[in-house]
């Protein structure tokens, strides 16, 4: 861990000013950042602790949705009665992640900004373009069991590890951010990015920008939804493949469907074409398989993660079935619904 200055502002405007400094980083719950500091992966010269900012509330938006403050913890969010009633998918996805202890400390802003779990990214003795641009990617041709099968680039095949973000993508949330240029709102689909030529950039935040809240739109999916997560043990492991589904079924036909995949790409993976395939069709296996094919179009393994393609091919229809049947995956009973 290197030496850094430390600031703990109480106003967003001060935080953003502090955060604009060269090599500054925001500290929220610290469950990810502190590990990265200890491993010398994050080497900020200034740490801006945002824990005292007034961003720890959940409130209503003007458009009938919910606003989740960036500093509300993952636990508070998952167990908030409004979230549970109106956005059970989000609640479920959060509870599928990490452990109770981590969720008690982790914040919503920190969750969507957590860094990849790529082994090489975490180990400064190894090459990694995301950590050290231009160094090369150790995972390509290396140990890549947990890596991406979609949207990769020759420079990086990392995944985004968040479960919560997968649900937020399906729910079409918006991310509210404040920077030195003022406030802006980023649609969730545009928040995270693919590695492309700049694998060091996880998302579209500009330097120094602070996430203040995540807005959930008015539309609720309370009947037909699920968060299905496959991992290396039954709890406390990152997703190898996860599937968030939010669906509306009218008169036995799919009126609307959203599918987002976790564990397979540098961002929660959605393909609107796959969702369109479902609209107007009966919720049956044929429809689900058709959507699955579109979603996984172009999927490519890198050796140790080849299995993710058949895994996703089986998990997506299963999740669609769970959602259509109104039997969402429980996050406490580990039997798969």
């Amino acid at each position, binding site marked *: *861990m290197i030496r850094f200055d430390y600031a703990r502002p109480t106003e967003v405007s001060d935080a953003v000013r502090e955060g604009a400094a060269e090599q500054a980083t925001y500290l929220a719950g610290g469950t990810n950042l502190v590990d990265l500091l200890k491993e010398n992966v994050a080497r900020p010269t200034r740490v801006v602790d945002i824990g005292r900012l007034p961003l720890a509330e959940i409130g209503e938006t003007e458009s009938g949705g919910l606003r989740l403050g960036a500093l509300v913890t993952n636990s508070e969010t998952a167990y908030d009665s409004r979230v549970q009633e109106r956005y059970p998918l989000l609640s479920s996805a959060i509870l599928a992640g990490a452990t109770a202890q981590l969720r008690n400390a982790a914040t919503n802003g920190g969750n969507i900004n957590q860094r990849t779990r790529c082994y090489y990214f975490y180990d400064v*003795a190894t090459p990694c373009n995301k950590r050290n641009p231009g160094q090369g990617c150790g995972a390509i041709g290396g140990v890549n069991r947990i890596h991406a099968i979609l949207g990769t680039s020759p420079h990086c095949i990392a995944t985004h590890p968040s479960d919560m973000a997968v649900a937020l993508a399906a729910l079409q949330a918006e991310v509210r951010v404040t920077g030195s240029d003022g406030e802006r709102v980023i649609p969730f689909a545009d928040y995270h990015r693919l590695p492309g030529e700049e694998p060091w950039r996880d998302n579209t935040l500009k330097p120094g920008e602070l996430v203040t809240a995540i807005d959930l739109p008015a539309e609720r999916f309370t009947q037909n939804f699920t968060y299905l997560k496959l991992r*290396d*043990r*039954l709890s406390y492991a990152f997703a190898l493949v996860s599937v968030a589904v939010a669906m509306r079924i009218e008169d036995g036909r799919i009126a609307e469907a959203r599918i987002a995949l976790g564990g397979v790409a540098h961002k929660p993976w959605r393909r609107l074409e796959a969702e369109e395939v479902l609209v107007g069709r009966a919720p049956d296996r044929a429809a689900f398989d058709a959507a699955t094919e579109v979603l996984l179009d172009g999927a490519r393994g890198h050796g140790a993660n080849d*299995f993710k393609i058949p895994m996703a091919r089986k998990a997506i229809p299963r999740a669609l079935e769970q959602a259509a049947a109104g039997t969402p995956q429980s996050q406490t009973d580990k*039997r798969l619904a």
Partner: protein
Amino acid sequence: MPDTRHEPIRVGIGTPLNRVDGEAKVTGQAQYAAEYPAAGLLHGVIVSGRIARGRITGIDETAARSVPGVVEVLTHRNRPHTPWLDRNYKDELSIPGDPFRPLESEEIQFSGQPVALVLAETFEAARFAASLIDVSYEAAPHNIDFEASLAEKFLPSKKRNSYHEPKNHGDADAAFDKAELRHEARYHLAVEHHNPMEMHATTVDWHGDGTLTVYDKNQGSQGVQSYLCNIFGFSKKELRVVNAYVGGAFGSGLRPQYQVYLAVMAAKHMQRSVRVVMTRQQMFTHAHRPEAVYTVKLGAEPTGKLTAILGDATTSTSRFEDNMEDVVIWGMINYDSPNMKGEYSIAPRDTYTSADMRAPGAATGMTIFEIAMDELAYKAGVDPLEFRMINYSDIDAMYRTPFTSKALREAYREGAAAFGWDRRSPEPRSMREGRELIGWGMATGLWNAEFVETSARARLTADGRLEVASATSDIGTGTYTVLALVAADTLGLRPERITVRIGDSDLPHSQVEGGSRAAASAGAAVQLACQAVGAKLLAAAAKVEGKPLGDARSLEDVTLTDGYMILRSDPSKAVSFADAMAASGLDVIEEEATAKPGLGDRISQMTKSRNVHSAVFAEVRVDEDLGQVRVTRIVNAVAAGRIINPKTARSQILGGVVMGMGMALHEETMGDPILGRWMNHNLAEYHIPVNADVHDIEVIFVDEPDPEVTPLGAKGVGEIGIISTAAAIANAIFHATGQRHRNLPITIDRLIAT
């Protein structure tokens, strides 16, 4: 007179007793190696190397040395002088080869090798400075890929002490070729790292008068003491090693780890107290269970009776030491077959030396053999349990010697009954509930029952308090509690009156704690020491006025209860310990004793086999499409002689079973062949079972009286729980899915791909 209004509570061998150190542990009063304060303490942070093989060409320490608080950077260039000969570096469990010497030279032998130790007044300064050390290397070709290393496999001419050569019988190859039923397959076990909860750590308290106390995480204080004295030139009077509490080890603390070497070297160099604690990442740079391949060939008659057992195994080691394990002997010991042959070799690669990890050799070899047995049972069309009974051997089938005891039949019977094995439907894929396929599998466990020379001291004071002491260790196994029970049993005292002191090289001699032998060995020593105290008490009682105990000469003549000696022939006659001591003018009775195999024991050890057995039954539920496995039920029936403390013994089996679940489904250290480095070196990506993975585990101890095996009749339970648990699970997965998995761990990708 003792209080006879209610039955005195007699706590002794067989009483389920809570951990006597439990309160100290949960209230944080138990001190671990990294927690001891020391005046003027320097903090040492280890810089780990990047490459797998080659040499250091340069170290730039300028930036590190300019960090305020940094007092020294030790590297191979400026380290203090150390002895030249390998024999100075041997430890209690040394294996053939050249022991690793930290900071010895510019040579790099494995990735993560310590290349510098930064010493600073604060931990923060040391850690920061460590990040600034810039090491350059010249890399040499390396290999950490096990399959590639098999090209270099060999059987060392100089064997490791603990290694047992397989004893062949008959003509196994010919019998296999002739057999009507045959099974042949190659099995693989991934590398596992021990990962005890507590990281390896050392605090050296430099007293300034030429003496030092080394608080160290290890499994044997006296072994580490000898090692350090040999290298750094201290006498045993000067250098004391304390390991009073150990936060797990599983074998990683059997041999001294490099942090203790660095800490003592630094303390001696700086003439100051020093602490060095490994990071979790550094826990992946030393001991690990060797990777293994094992080809098993079995031939049988159509009835299922084995006619040939052939095993050929290779395990991984480093290029500088030849670590060996007993892999292939277990199936040969356990099953009756006229023809058997075992072959074994090791394959070197550019990693640290592999090491003993809970049930070394058997956890690998018996587990794999039991998967092979399951395969042949299906081929024979015989129920897997019945198949074991057909091939049951009442004697050690490899050495052809009788056992001191073997209640495996009872373990099978009781385990099967508790599990409900008779309700199993034999066909694979024939049991399901909803989308889950249900599978039931079983396997046999086998391990050694050892007893080694150990000393202990017992000290009774006039206030009726007893202290027992031995240098043995408690690595979470419950040694404190077991010794308290043995002492309570022998002298009839309540455990609250007994203090157990262990984990200190100043105490009476004990070997390193490993091989499931501490309870039987230290327990026997404590019993002897307490008996000696008892004899003194009895002699003292003769001085009590009126001689209430008459002519009682031997401890056989009295019952010891609650601080009283009561005459067996006339229970109305009793003398309290306090009265006896007062009458003889004794404030203290102190006795030291050594338990060691006597002549009869040695003959018995030469002519009889001594083993622990188990029968493991597992139920799994596998999602048919998605391959997710849930281990919903385990029954482990253990025949381990006399159980000293059913409570801590059960905990040992539970822990072993959970670790076996990890072996079956989770634990795997993955290496990057290009970098020559273990990559998932953290507990987020090195998976072990968590609560959600663990359901019902039932532990049964079957009755197995065995006065011959060890003085207490105890066999040890620290390792048997892990052995073959993974086989029972793998066999259950086959029964559930019809898919045979021969690579452990059976991770979800393996289940989804098939």
